[in-house]
Every structure is written in structure tokens, then in C-alpha cells.
């Protein structure tokens, strides 16, 4: 028994001597002592010496939380030749000295906690972690800026990476943007070189127009089925000349890249700098598929790359790690009937506005009204459309990027068209970021953007213009602003495909379908599921610099696994007593990691041989959460290091 003072942190409200003396009366305790800082080198040396001199078979350290120093003391024990799982921590700091003011009460509780730890240690057995191999290849799901950056960082470290992207090109939402805040760089100018880098990297393989169909396995050994959808183009033969697109007579499809503001052909590349520069045939629009006639593209294609017979292809590959980088979609404002989106053509979303301002966009960069093609005289921006909202209409969270991109939009309008009046309705303006507030203030002070604190209640069409009715909370009045264009700063929303992908990866998700990180502060790019990492907005709203930073962090964490030859597992995992297991499969249903399967096994029950349906644990997947042990109705499932007997012994010791 080793009791730590933690300076005055513990010794201030716990009488250390009483704890030491009380422990000597507990069964199994042969040696007890104390030290001011047990985690310091001197304390650790004391731990090693105690084990060696007294031939200890287990130790209890009464100190801070095991989250803090359990690993430290396990290492010290191992150095002295003791199995590291024969170390128990009694948390007498966070659970005791820090929450008590009265020394008598604190001391009494510390004694009880110490007793519980001793009772548990008496039932501990040495545990030995298993090992498994690592496949030295990473899978990145999503080919936006997050996925591209993660892939480049892993590839530059010398490991193979595959990117699976569901649309025909990589680039993601960033490729649709015009300029980026707060520096106003052109988005395409900084993104497209990275897209090309990814395509040309000898360690990176792109699977565009592809989706993940199935994932099985565990950290180090994932096996994944990728569905490469039929492009109807032989990518190896296509030279990207674009003759097919020119000749295609079906031109009524809405361009996804231009947010439906322009049409595209049935055979198309989403935008000029698409990577790969290989077209796709949209089978729902193609006349050949719809009527059997046409085939003009096939006739003009010199390298004979068009193949109407092409089928989806399933590619099976194995990976050591998987990085989710599925990004986001702007929320559709259709539930906000008061804004008239969908009915009033001059009410548009911010992403649509990006396309209208973009020189490569549907209007060649001219900002024109959707209703009559005229130049607007007045523009109103509305922030928080679907953000910080009532749960039945939008999202409860702040989407984080809208204040800044709206300031950017307002500034760009005033810069390009100084005669246009610009107003912004806001709840709060949030600009925490390097050079962010300076940027917003420039919009107000230098560019004369009219910021109005308040929400909009209705947008009505009156005499061909839009009448925006809102509140001005600073003036405490209802106001009306006449506008020719209204731009809705719509919330960041997780991709619809994120939740099903999370289920496939057995990665936990939050209530908003963002991937959950393992620890909000200390493990922000790791999923709780081993071997799954999170890159970019799929984990929560982020701007581009944060996305890129997180993408790099996810790459480093992934490399931490890829660079190992063997993975050492956590031995504190669940296991069934096959004689007690009744095959009910309750544990399989509650396991958040998919570590439990059922199989028919021959059971030798005291010489009586039967074949029974029993639970099996995949030790590489189990994270030791214990959900199965409390679910199991027959008590067959037990968690090593935290067995039912050990926990009951702790409870008994506390109640004694």
C-alpha cells in the first residue's frame, strides 16, 4: 500500500498516517508507506524498491485518478518484474480530498476507497495483452479538402492511401467556393494544386464516383468493399478532350456543382478543373439509356472510351486504418416557410451566392437577380438560418463559419458593386479566429455594411421586390428593409450518408450525425472505435484552416498505427463463460463496437458434450466498455480486470 500526499492536494484534507495505519490491518497487506509525490521519480523508485524488497504480488497506490497516473505506476511495476495489471489505484484526490473540506470526513472516505481497492486487488490475476498485425494502407472516405490533406500527409510519410469519393471528382465543398476568409484567396487557386498533388502522388489511389459498401475487421485489419459506380467511360482510354460533352444533346439536368443554378449535360465533368478529368454519364438523363437512341458521344469519342454496358464494380481491399472525412451539406431552408425559399427566386442560399459570385459560375461572376436577370440595388443577408434554432426546425448548435462567410460576402459585394446597399441580420457576430474580428470590422467600418441585430420574421414579395420584415433589437423596433436579393446563411449539416457510414464503421455518432471524438479535449481526431480517425467537418462544424489542421492531426494519429508492425491490445476485455451462455444474443445487440458474434460450438459440460450457440469475442475489436457484462442475463459475460466478483468485492469492502 503506497499512499501519496500529492503535496497538500491530498494531505490537506486527508490524514495520510491514518490511511497508512488502517491499510496495515487489511487482508493481504504486508507493507504500507507514504510519500509526498509518488508520481515523481523518487516515488516511482520507491514503488520499484518496495516490490523487489518485499516480493510483492500486487500493489495499491492511493493517489490521484487512474486516468492521470495508472500508466505511470503500471510501468514502474513492470520494471520491477510485476505484472502491470496487478496494480490498483485508489482515487483519493479527485474523488475524495478535492471534494471534501472536513479532514475527518475526507480521511474516513480515503480509508474506505483504499479498502475497496485492496479487496479488488486480492482478486486480480495477471493479464497479458494479445498482439495483431497491421496492414500498411489507409482508407480515406471523402475527397474534400479534409480527405485530400489527410491522404497527402499519410502518403508523404511513405504509406499507401486510397481515397473513396462519392461524386465524380475530388474537391468537395471547397471547390464550389469563390473566395476564402479572412485573406480572400481564391478557393480554387489554393485547392486545385492539392487536388492535382493527390492525383499524381504515387502512394495515393483515387476511387471517385465510388462509395463504401461494407466494412468488416478491426484496427490494423479492416477489410472494405468499395463500389465503383458505372461511369460508362473507360477511364484508362479517356483523354479528357470533352468532345462527348459538346455533342451531348441532353442538357436539362441541374448542375450539382452550381447548386442547380445552371444546367449540365447528361455526360459531364462537374467543373473544368475536376480530378480526374474523366466524364460521367448520368443514366437518369442520358437519351441512350432513356430511349435507346442517340449514342452521339460514342460516335465522336476517338479513343473509344464510351461504354454504355459498364456495370458497377466491387473492389475489395484491406486497410490498417480508416479515416472518415465525409464533410457536410448546407441545411435546406425549405422548412423556413417565412423566408419563402423555393417560392421566391430572389431568395438564395449562401452556397448559391458563392456560385453567383464565382467567375467560373453560371453568370460568369455577374451578381444578377434570379427573377429578372437585373442587377440588385439592395441585398439582405440573414445569418443563423437553421443554426442555434428550435429543434423542430433546425440545429441547436452554432455552425461556426456563417458569421465569417457572410462578412466575406457582404464585403465582396460592396467591393465589386459599391452602389449596392448591404444589410446583415444577425443574432450575434462570432469571430474567434486569427484575424477574424479585424476582418468583420473591416466589413462594417471600411465597407459600410449595415449590421442589424435581430431576426427576420417574413420575406414577402411586393411590387417585384422583396420586403424583409425583421426586428432591430438595439432600436427595439420592427423594421422593414426592401431588397432585391436575400441570402440565407444556412446551417452546416452532416451528410445524409454519415450515419449509415458510422454504423458500418461501428463509430459512434452524436445526435446531429456528426462523428463523435474519443475525448472532447484530449482525443479530438480519434473515434472511440480503434483504428477509425476523424478528419474535417464530419466531426463538427469547422472552417478551412481548422479542417486542414485536423486533417493533418488525423493523419499523424493514423500513422501512429501504420508505423507499427504489431499492435498490443488492451487485455481488459470481455469474455463469455461458455457453460453459462444461453445464446440469447443480448450482448451482441448492445456491443457498440461489433466485437461480439455468435457461433455453434461443441461444449464439454462435465463430460456431457453438446453443440450450443454461444457468444464469441473478437479480442482485437473489444474495447472493454463492459456493456455486455451488465446486459448478460445469465452472468456469463465477464470483463477481465473488472470481473463481477471484483466489483462486488469492492462494494462489500465499502459497505463493511
Amino acid at each position, binding site marked *: 500500500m503506497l499512499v501519496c500526499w500529492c503535496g497538500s492536494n491530498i494531505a490537506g484534507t486527508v490524514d495520510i498516517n491514518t490511511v497508512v495505519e488502517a491499510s496495515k490491518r487489511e487482508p493481504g497487506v504486508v507493507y504500507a508507506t507514504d510519500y509526498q509525490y509518488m508520481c515523481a521519480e523518487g516515488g516511482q523508485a520507491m514503488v520499484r524498491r518496495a516490490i523487489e524488497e518485499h516480493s510483492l504480488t500486487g500493489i495499491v497506490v492511493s493517489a490521484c485518478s487512474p486516468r492521470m497516473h495508472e500508466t505511470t505506476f503500471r510501468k514502474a511495476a513492470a520494471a520491477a518484474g510485476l505484472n502491470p495489471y496487478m496494480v490498483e489505484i485508489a482515487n483519493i484526490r479527485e474523488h475524495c480530498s478535492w471534494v471534501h473540506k472536513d479532514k475527518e470526513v475526507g480521511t474516513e472516505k480515503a480509508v474506505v476507497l483504499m479498502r475497496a481497492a485492496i479487496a479488488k486487488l486480492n482478486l486480480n490475476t495477471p493479464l497479458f495483452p494479445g498482439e495483431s498485425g497491421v496492414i500498411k494502407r489507409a482508407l480515406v472516405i471523402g475527397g474534400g479538402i479534409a480527405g485530400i490533406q489527410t491522404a497527402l500527409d499519410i502518403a508523404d510519410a511513405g504509406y499507401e492511401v486510397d481515397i473513396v469519393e462519392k461524386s465524380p471528382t475530388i474537391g468537395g465543398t471547397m471547390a464550389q467556393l469563390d473566395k476564402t476568409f479572412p485573406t480572400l484567396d481564391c478557393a480554387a487557386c489554393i485547392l486545385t494544386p492539392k487536388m492535382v498533388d493527390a492525383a499524381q502522388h504515387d502512394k495515393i489511389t483515387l476511387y471517385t464516383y465510388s462509395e463504401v459498401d461494407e466494412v468488416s475487421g478491426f484496427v490494423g485489419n479492416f477489410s472494405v468493399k468499395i463500389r465503383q459506380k458505372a461511369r460508362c467511360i473507360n477511364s484508362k482510354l479517356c483523354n479528357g478532350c470533352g468532345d462527348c460533352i459538346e455533342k451531348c444533346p441532353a442538357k436539362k439536368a441541374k448542375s450539382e456543382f452550381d447548386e442547380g443554378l445552371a444546367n449540365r449535360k447528361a455526360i459531364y465533368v462537374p467543373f473544368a478543373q475536376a480530378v480526374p478529368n474523366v466524364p460521367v454519364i448520368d443514366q437518369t438523363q442520358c437519351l441512350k439509356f432513356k430511349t435507346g437512341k442517340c449514342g452521339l458521344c460514342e460516335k465522336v469519342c476517338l479513343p473509344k472510351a464510351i461504354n454504355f454496358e459498364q456495370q458497377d464494380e466491387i473492389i475489395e481491399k484491406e486497410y490498417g486504418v480508416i479515416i472518415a472525412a465525409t464533410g457536410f451539406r448546407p441545411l435546406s431552408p425549405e422548412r*423556413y*416557410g*417565412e423566408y*419563402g425559399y423555393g*417560392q*421566391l427566386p430572389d431568395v438564395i442560399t449562401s452556397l448559391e451566392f458563392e456560385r453567383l459570385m464565382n467567375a467560373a459560375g453560371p453568370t460568369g461572376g455577374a451578381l444578377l437577380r434570379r427573377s429578372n436577370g437585373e442587377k440588385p440595388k439592395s441585398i439582405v443577408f440573414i445569418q443563423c438560418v437553421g443554426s442555434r434554432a428550435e429543434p423542430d426546425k433546425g440545429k441547436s448548435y452554432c455552425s461556426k463559419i456563417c458569421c465569417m462567410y457572410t462578412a466575406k460576402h457582404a464585403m465582396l459585394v460592396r467591393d465589386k458593386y459599391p452602389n449596392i446597399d448591404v444589410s446583415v441580420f444577425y443574432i450575434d457576430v462570432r469571430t474567434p479566429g486569427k484575424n477574424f474580428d479585424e476582418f468583420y470590422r473591416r466589413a462594417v467600418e471600411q465597407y459600410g455594411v449595415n449590421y442589424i441585430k435581430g431576426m427576420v420574421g*417574413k*420575406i*414577402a*414579395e*411586393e*411590387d417585384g421586390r422583396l*420586403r424583409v420584415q425583421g426586428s432591430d433589437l438595439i432600436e427595439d423596433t420592427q423594421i422593414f428593409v426592401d431588397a432585391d436579393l436575400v441570402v440565407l446563411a444556412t446551417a452546416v449539416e452532416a451528410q445524409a450518408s454519415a450515419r449509415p457510414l458510422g454504423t458500418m464503421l461501428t463509430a459512434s455518432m452524436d445526435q446531429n450525425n456528426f462523428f463523435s471524438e474519443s475525448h472532447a479535449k484530449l482525443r479530438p481526431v480519434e473515434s472511440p472505435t480503434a483504428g477509425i480517425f476523424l478528419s474535417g467537418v464530419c466531426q463538427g462544424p469547422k472552417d478551412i484552416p481548422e479542417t486542414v489542421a485536423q486533417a493533418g492531426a488525423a493523419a499523424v494519429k493514423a500513422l501512429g498505427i501504420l508505423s507499427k508492425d504489431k499492435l498490443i491490445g488492451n487485455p481488459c476485455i470481455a469474455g463469455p463463460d461458455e457453460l453459462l451462455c444461453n445464446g440469447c444474443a443480448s450482448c451482441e445487440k448492445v456491443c457498440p463496437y461489433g466485437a461480439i458474434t455468435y457461433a455453434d460450438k461443441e461444449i464439454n459440460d462435465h463430460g456431457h458434450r453438446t453443440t450450443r450457440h454461444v457468444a464469441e469475442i473478437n479480442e482485437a475489436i473489444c474495447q472493454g466498455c463492459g456493456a455486455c457484462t451488465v446486459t448478460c442475463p445469465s452472468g456469463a459475460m465477464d470483463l477481465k480486470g473488472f470481473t463481477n466478483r471484483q466489483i462486488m468485492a469492492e462494494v462489500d469492502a465499502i459497505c463493511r
Partner: protein
Amino acid sequence: MDKTYLYYPGCTLKTKAKELDAYALQSMEMLGIPCKELDEWQCCGAVYPQATDEIATRLSAARALEEARQKDCDLLTLCSACHHVMKRVNHDIASDADIRMKVNNYSEFETPYAGETKVVHFLEMLRDTIGFAELKKRVLNPLTGRKIGAYYGCLLLRPSNVMQFDDPENPYIMEEFLHAIGAEPVLYSYRNECCGGYVALDDPALVQKVCTKVLHSAEQKGAEVLVTACPLCKYNLTKHDSGDVPTYYFTELLAEALGVKE
């Protein structure tokens, strides 16, 4: 139709708004909707009392609701104001224990009433019992080519969590109705704005302003006529239109389409 509706017309439908009532009854007969007028109904109270401790003005609505429960019928309403009062009083009784207790203490019903009755507006009945697709088949004189603006006003829609009628910001039930009778619905921005209601007594200038706004907005979008379910809306709008966009009760157009308008 197995269930008979218990019909609550309300005072205005027997006086100022006789045609709203008459055309509805003719149409229901034609459509074969079993319906019986509530015996000895009283005024609904006309205005929903906002004060939570106001009990007396909720009692006559409670009486109608309890009567419908006794007869095991849904209570069918037509006037927007009556529908509003019935629906909200019913919601109060169902959700507020204090109001429920006081209403029952006053009324001394044989079995305490706890909001069991379902209040159905005529339009909801058309949508849910007959169905707009079926209604379309029963139309003899489709109003083809007629450009009609639906005017909802506010009483049918708000508060939306209690009324549960339609999307309060972008309602569509009346447009669906207009489609069913063969007309061309005209969408305009102010179709769910208030007409001014009883403020007409106190501040007629304000009512003129809001009604003109509604009428102007409908006219600009090409509406030839407006339809409403509310006698007060019709009164206010009619008073302020210049004759270009007259307002009718939706039941009149229904009767016309079904060929029962006399």
C-alpha cells in the same frame, strides 16, 4: 363513412355568413358525409381568452366539446374563429390540470371532460375523410382556368403547435383544395397574414392598411378572387377591396364545382 360528424356552425354562420354554412351543408350532402348539427349549441365565445385563469368564457366551448364526446362524434367546425376557440379550449382542458379542474367544477358533467373530443375543420375533413384525389373525381363543373388566391388569415394556422392545421409559414391545404376543384391556385406572400380582425372596431385605418396589402399582393400575382374560411376576414377584405379582387367563402366554390350551388 362510418362516423357521423357533429357539426358546430356558430353564430355568424346563421346571420352574417349564411352562405358559408348553406354551401357547406349542400356540398356535404352531395358528398355523402353523414353530419348532424349539434343541438342547442351556443356561441363559442368568439374570442379565445388569453388569460389562463379565465374560466367562464371557456365554458360554452367546453359544453359543445363534451356533447360531442357523449355522442362519440368528431366535432366539425367551419368558421375559422369557432375552430380556433374550440381547438384551443380543448387543448387547454387536455393539457392544463388547473383549467380542467375548474371547467369540470363549473360544468358538473356526468363524467369529467378531459379533452377527448377531436375537433375537425371542414377543410381537414375534405382532406382526410374524403381525400382531395377523390374530391377531384366528384367535381362536375371544374373551375378550369380560374385563378384563385387562398387566404388563410391567422386563426386557422396559429399557434401552430395547438392548431396542428398546416405549416403556418407556408400552408398548402387550401391550394390543394383549389387544385381538386379544378382551379389554379395563386401563391402570394401575404396569404397567411392577419386581416386585422376585431381591430376594425378600434383602428379602422390599420385594418385598411393590412387588408390593402393582402389584396394588392394577391392581385399582383394574378389572383382574380380570394377564398377564405373566415367570416371576419371576408368582412374586412370585402370592405377594403376596390371590386377587383372579391373574396368568397371556399364552400361557395366547392358547391359550384360539385354542381349543387343554387
